[in-house]
């Protein structure tokens, strides 16, 4: 649907223009930003997990957001097992190798930082396996150039449960969603329309042409319905062009809650999901 609106905007707003302007903005309070994803991988019992903490910054700061260092990070499962996430060598990054995540479990994240306490709770979202990863020409309706190989997958959705998916793609180790790639937004979808069905020839990043010799790693992560709403809101905001067909500007709110007496607001998310992953190299 968004493609339609974008295309309409392209055609109909041809007489208009965008202009970068100088605006003086007020500065809000510093807030903690949490990026905490626990991955349940079927192919390994590896307990390696990572939580990244950073803070907000002035809107026009122009530098990488400051890491939130010195925090105490722990994850507790519904059996009461507590796993600490010590700070790694990278500032603001907290890791453990002791948390193999299992479907059916519920996990609670607890963070203490600068005297404030934060919490978030999540169940592990189911996912689906990627049957194959291969390279194919773009399907009808694809974005980007009309020809050129795209990373393509086949999968089968589990018809017994509702599923929501997040896809990530790295080309030679470089993620497609990141400040350097300008792939604005996360590729997410619900299983509405293919619940319980097999999908063949799906190209989650249909605008990205893969160059010969490149190695592609494609990850398919099950997310909760709550995370689906979070990513949809995130996409609506980061790709907001201010056209009549865009939603109003609004802050994105995740599921991390301040539990200190003064109820500090935290940004970001905490979720756990089943991860399927495939890697393939396009022949030179």
């Amino acid at each position, binding site marked *: 649907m968004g493609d339609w609106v974008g295309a309409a905007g392209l055609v109909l707003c041809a007489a208009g223009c965008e202009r970068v302007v100088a605006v003086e903005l007020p500065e809000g309070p510093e*807030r903690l930003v949490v990026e905490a994803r626990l991955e349940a991988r079927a192919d390994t019992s590896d307990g390696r997990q990572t939580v990244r903490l950073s803070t907000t910054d002035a809107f026009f700061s122009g530098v990488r957001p400051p890491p939130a260092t010195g925090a105490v990070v722990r994850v507790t499962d519904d059996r009461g097992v507590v796993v600490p996430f010590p700070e790694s060598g990278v500032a603001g990054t907290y890791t453990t190798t002791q948390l193999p995540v299992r479907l059916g479990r519920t996990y609670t994240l607890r963070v203490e930082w600068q005297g404030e306490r934060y919490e978030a709770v999540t169940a592990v979202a189911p996912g689906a396996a990627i049957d194959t990863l291969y390279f194919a020409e773009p399907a009808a309706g694809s974005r980007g150039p009309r020809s050129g190989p795209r990373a393509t997958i086949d999968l089968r959705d589990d018809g017994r449960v509702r599923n929501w998916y997040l896809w990530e793609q790295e080309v030679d180790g470089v993620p497609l969603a990141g400040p350097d790639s300008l792939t604005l937004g996360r590729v997410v979808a619900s299983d509405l329309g293919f619940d319980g069905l097999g999908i063949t020839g799906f190209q989650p990043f249909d605008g990205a042409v893969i160059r010969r010799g490149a190695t592609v790693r494609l990850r398919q992560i099950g997310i909760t319905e709550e995370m689906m709403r979070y990513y949809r809101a995130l996409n609506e905001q980061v790709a907001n062009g201010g056209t009549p067909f865009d939603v109003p500007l609004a802050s994105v709110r995740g599921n991390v809650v301040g539990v200190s007496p003064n109820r500090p607001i935290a940004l970001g998310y905490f979720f756990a999901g089943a991860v399927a992953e495939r890697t393939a190299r396009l022949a030179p």
Partner: protein
Amino acid sequence: VTARVRALLLFTAAAIAAIPAGAQTPEFRPLSRVLGDARAAGGPLPGNLATPVVMRPRAAALGELLRDLTRQAGIAVVYPGELADGPMVRTAPDTLAVGDALLVVTRGTGWTPWADGAGAVVVRRDSVRRAPDGERARVSGFVRSAETREVVRYASLLALPDSIRGQSSADGSFSLALPRGTQRLRVRALGFAPLDTIVEVAGPVTLELTLGSVAAALASVTVAAAAEPSDIDPATPAMSVARLDLQALRRTPAVLGEVDPVRSLSLLPGVSRTSDFSSAFTVRGGGADQNLILLDEATVFNPAHIFGFLSVFNSDAVDDVTLYKGAIPSRFGGRLSSVLDVRQREGNAREYAGSASVGLLASRALAEGPLPFTRGSFLVAGRRSYADAFLGAASDSTVRDTRAYFYDLNAKVNVPLGRTGNLMFSQYAGRDVFGQEDLGDTRWGNRSATLRWNQIVGGRLFSKVSLNTSRYDYALGFDVVSEPVEWTSRIANDALRVDQVLSVAGQEVEFGGEVATLEIRPGDVLTADSAVIAPVRVEKRQAAMFAAYVGHKVDVGPRVTLHYGARWAAFDRLGPGTRYRYADDLAVRWNQAQARFEPGRLIDSTPVARGTGLAQFDGWEPRAALRVGLTPRASIKASYARTRQYLLLVSRTTSPTPLDVWEPAGPYLAPQTGDQVAVGYAATLADGVWDLSVEAYGKTLRNVADFADGSDVLLNPRVETAIVQGDGRAYGVEVLVRRNAGRTRGWLSYTAGRARQRVRAGADGGINGGAWYPSPTDKTHDFSLVAIRTLSSRWTVGSTVAVASGLPVTYPVARYQVDGLLVPEYGPRNGARLPLYHRLDVSLTRTGRRSDLQFGIYNLYNRMNAQSMTFRQVQDRPLATEAVQLSILGILPTISYTWRF
């Protein structure tokens, strides 16, 4: 044509000269004496009574002969409608001055033509039975255009010396209870030359009052034709009504040459648009979906072409656009903020005519004329855009491969039933197509039809029965993993309406009702191969709607008029469907810890059988309007109106899109209600040359909708889990100053207002912490000036100046990074403002005998007005962020040509 125009102008000028302030009596004498005196004095005959007309050998009713003669000579003649049935008159072939011809055809019939010094003619019965003083008789009939015989809506009537006032209805009919004897009658209507005549009231009589067009007067440099538009009529309690002068609009600059009645509404006080792109409008701080849009009484659910750039109303096929911003009459209901009542033209009942127009965006064609085998008229109009032709020449391949066009088809047929009845069929069909090679096609459009029977019964009861049907649908065709998929949605509404107006002893009682059905299919996604894509069908919504209303208009003494009434409306949401139940009975709940709305927890769901009630709502909507006359030309007014709305447009975007879906009130979606009060002052100044209206209004709205962030409203079977409801309030002052006559005409509109909304949850939860915040449509100041200057009989220059406060915008107070994306963290919603908006449009129109040529420039000095301000990552410096101002329309020249035949 020239003679007719000249005659109308002379008649107009003479009528104005004869009654400069409504205090003097037009001196009517028998026509034979008027002609004799003029000839004896050796001077010209008054007015254009000397215009030669051709009499053919035939036998016809006197009314038909009078109609034929007046059409040939282009003069206005007032005569009772009963002459259409006789007496029968046989005429011999001859060519005579029209004055003499009138004497010839009326000779021996018992009827005599009378004329005044300006050549205005009235046909009166030879012997009038005088009645005792004080006895009244009903004078009723229709006000019609002299040029086309189409009805003239909302014409104001004033009978002197008793100052009895009336107004023609939306169907052109009128009824006055006048004292028997001679009455002077003044008739005024927007876009028509004034008519001042006399009526001999001997008993109940049916009249046809024909008004000359003022279009010629617009182009004249010598005649100042003062019209008295009835939307600022100090003589009636009606207020907060705005009527567009379409003839004037055709001489003002239009975007890409398309005169758009809906776009033009924002030039009126209290009406605003939030984007130069979209024609969607808001009224006095309401939402875009709170306007009831009617085309010949059928609801138009999505009045948008080209994703909202243009409205679906073809200005060639429309002759009246009336917007009720407040004091909404009790016969209307169903929306909170306004009613936009659009009427299609009836077609020329005198002769076959047509027009064709070419603009930069679309071409239009229209044909009209009398019906071939019976009395009556027809009109057929079509419009088709050809943007796709230009897109094919674009260098950008995406644009080049785009298919984008729309078309409209309007049709209307009118058949008179006797002298006091009328049967009307009106139809509209329109379609937009937009597609790209890669994306597939999307199509959307409206279809509506109205069958209406009007009848005046006994000169007192105006009866109207109508059947309306309205459809809106869209279809998207696209591929999913190489599998073609079709996504459709539809809303259907059928209604039977009865409207009655009873005039008794100078009072007016209106009453009626409506029964309607509603069916909404929010979305069906189908594919040929269900093994690849599972079909999705969102449960359809069904409802039955009932309404009844009554209104009473009464004069309380000579200076005070009271119009009060009430409407009762019921809305039954019906099965088949599913009844859902949520924890704590909340479909949406506020998560205080995370400061966000999220879907309520579903407990269970039970099927509901066909015809079984899912939810029932009903309520009273009191309405009242009061006028207190200060002078004959000035009054103060006050009004109150409660409105209810049972349908909500589910649209999360800034402006509505064609792909939005309506959702009816239901178990977890409460109807919206509004209360509005207004006080105002209305005056006509300088003998009707100037109109002045000042109004102050205040309104409160309840259960207005907003949407939870990140919610998916499309194909959502439980869309109530995405909708949050809150309150709204708006207040302001509106000023309208209009000049109706002279070489420079136009109007100035100014609104100072505030619009606020609030979505609360608990003590301190909700959007913006539950505090009031500016509505997205809030404009503190909104000013526009429309001026039309007649340079010569052929050339007219038009201009539009618009100045307005910037719209509210939300600014970030910080940014952060998630998953590699830089995300703004925003401060208070709508806490800042865009820069001042201003723009100047100009046009130059050449009016020929059979053609109009217009050059225009939209946004003459290329002001890049901010439509929005967004904040994003810099493309080549990913860690940098920037503020981006979006402007939609810069300087835009246009040319259009209209040919009439």
